[in-house]
């Protein structure tokens, strides 16, 4: 009996842990290994990789080379692009958080029958294609748009020269925030919804004002939601190339654009792989950091 129970537990563990593990192996580990191998090869003349034959590559026996890594580290340029992408991703995450928090709280504290409708409204924009929604922002931010005229009219009153909204870092930020906002709202909402309202009542009874109630009760309890939402926004923004390409100006290049360029325009798969590996490492460290923080926060509460 006991033995069988242990067997069942093992089976259960396998059934629970197996599929996610398999998923990770197939969709994360295997592609990463391919990428690492690619990054040590020579680029092919026509895209793809050079054949692994010495006479073609003038390299070692296996046509492997660290030259793509050398190229990456030979110029501060690429570090600058990473830094810039991180700044944009952090800013986007922060703005999303500031905008999403009140909304998530509003939804979580509405009457139950309205909540589903409100969540539906949050995700409704996804019903239309992502690119179409970004192109719509081109019209909204364009120099002849109502918004541009309105803003410039106000600036004109204060004697400030008119600004162009489209093709600017501002437009990139607007696009990024717009696209990723729901990814912040949803995890925040699922977290806030679970909070026990009697905690707030208790805090009030003990004399806490509304700010204290938020800061010492709601906010610490919502931290796991904040971290999930932040990771869901930060990571995709880091790799995004379409938004800067469409809404950005002459200086708005991010790491995603650079990687895309290596696989298309430059036909340099090894260097593109090096950039992707660096990005993956960066994303993993951010995810690791977020996990650690959320554990740390949980530990503090306990």
């Amino acid at each position, binding site marked *: 009996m006991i033995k069988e129970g242990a067997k069942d537990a093992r089976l259960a563990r396998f059934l629970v842990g197996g599929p996610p593990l398999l998923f990770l192996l197939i969709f994360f580990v295997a592609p990463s290994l391919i990428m690492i191998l690619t990054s040590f090869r020579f*680029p092919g*003349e026509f*895209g*793809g990789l050079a054949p692994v034959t010495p006479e073609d590559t003038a390299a070692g026996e296996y046509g492997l080379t660290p030259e793509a890594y050398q*190229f990456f580290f030979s110029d501060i340029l690429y570090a*600058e692009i990473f830094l810039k992408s991180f700044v944009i991703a952090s800013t986007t995450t922060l703005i999303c958080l500031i905008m999403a928090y009140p909304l998530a709280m509003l939804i979580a504290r509405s009457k139950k029958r309205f909540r589903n409708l409100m969540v539906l409204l949050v995700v409704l924009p996804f019903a239309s294609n992502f690119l179409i929604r970004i192109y719509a922002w081109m019209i909204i931010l364009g120099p002849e748009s109502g918004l541009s005229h309105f803003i410039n009219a106000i600036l004109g009153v204060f004697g400030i020269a008119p600004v162009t909204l489209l093709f600017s870092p501002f437009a990139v930020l607007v696009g990024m925030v717009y696209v990723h906002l729901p990814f912040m709202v949803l995890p925040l909402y*699922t977290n806030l919804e679970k909070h026990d309202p009697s905690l707030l009542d208790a805090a009030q009874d003990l004399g806490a004002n509304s700010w204290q109630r938020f800061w010492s009760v709601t906010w610490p309890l919502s931290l796991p939601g904040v971290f*999930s939402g932040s990771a869901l926004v930060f990571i995709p923004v880091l790799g995004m190339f379409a938004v800067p390409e469409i809404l950005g100006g002459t*200086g708005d290049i991010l790491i995603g654009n650079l990687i895309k360029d290596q696989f298309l325009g430059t036909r340099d798969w090894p*260097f593109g792989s090096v950039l992707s590996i660096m990005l993956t490492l960066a994303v993993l460290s951010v995810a690791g950091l977020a996990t650690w923080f959320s554990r740390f926060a949980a530990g503090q509460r306990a």
Partner: protein
Amino acid sequence: MNGLRFRGSPGSLVFLLAWLALFSTGCARHDPHTIDGAENVLHLFNWNNYIAPETIARFETFCNCELSQDYYSDNEEMLAKLAAGAAGYDLIVPTGNAMDALIRQGALKPLDKSLLPNLENINPAYLDTAFDPGNKYSVPYAYTLTLLGFNEEKIRELGLPVDTWAIIFEPKYLEKIRGRVTVLDSQRELMAAALKYLGYSINDVDENHWKEAADLIVRAKPYWAAFSNTSYVKELAVGNLWVAHGYSNDMFQAALDAKKTGRKFMIGYSTPKEGAVLALDSMVLHRSGNRPHLAHQFINFMLDGKNSAELTNLIGSGNPNMAAMQYVRPEIAGNEAIFPDPELLTRLEMLRDLDRKQRRLLSRLWTEIKLR
């Protein structure tokens, strides 16, 4: 990855997120691998909007077959898809440098010219190019020029020249049109314009000349609104842009749009006197195609003057087919930006492919240009 988990959240929300992620990551594509070779279908890998619908209909009646198309929007995309293993295409319509890559790769089948009697319609000036001497593999289809499009009213008002690259590179002109100019988001095309303006060949690979061109670009960059490969067509047509560096068929489209929507201005376009890029697209047979006979039929069909002219009438592309000129609408046939005079023709060049070291170097230069 604990930080990513929604603790205790309803399963439906996770499902919803997965669904969102699917929606936001783009589109699934039809895979040519799955094509059944037995069907009477010709598979064409073509540029977007690069054949007139009436031409397709007529060809399908003529051959009693079906023309199936997959599309690409630039050569690199096409090469990347082929490099990643896309197959089953009978015909591709690459530009010279991409065709060069395909030929050297051994990806193309030689043509059987006995099946192409209409080849005599092609203007010899477009035959026997450096990419395919003797046209062993390729038949010219259409061409575009990379030139300047502009808002005629604004340019007249500001008194700017439009027959020179100076208008997108010289600050003295640019300061009058600051934020109203876009240039192509293409390493090769923009460098080509800069090199031409400096008096070099567009295929110059001297590193110092490249640096000189990059400096010219960096100096002019603050005045440009953006790098744009597609949106300039619309932005020109609605009046947000006054000058754009772009392709002749796109300018044709912008001019048409501005006219159709009754704007108060006209869109003009002209080829700078320093010279420009000529992109000649040719029909070639891909190795993976399994209907070579049908493909030859198609090439010969497209070499017919009337069929060839329909594309020019539709998108304003340049036409290397002499028999087509009688069917081309006169306002297009008379447009010097589409059909350059012989003197200007000598200053047009076709882009050659770069080797991998040069590509990597140019990419770094380009990244620097973008970041500065």
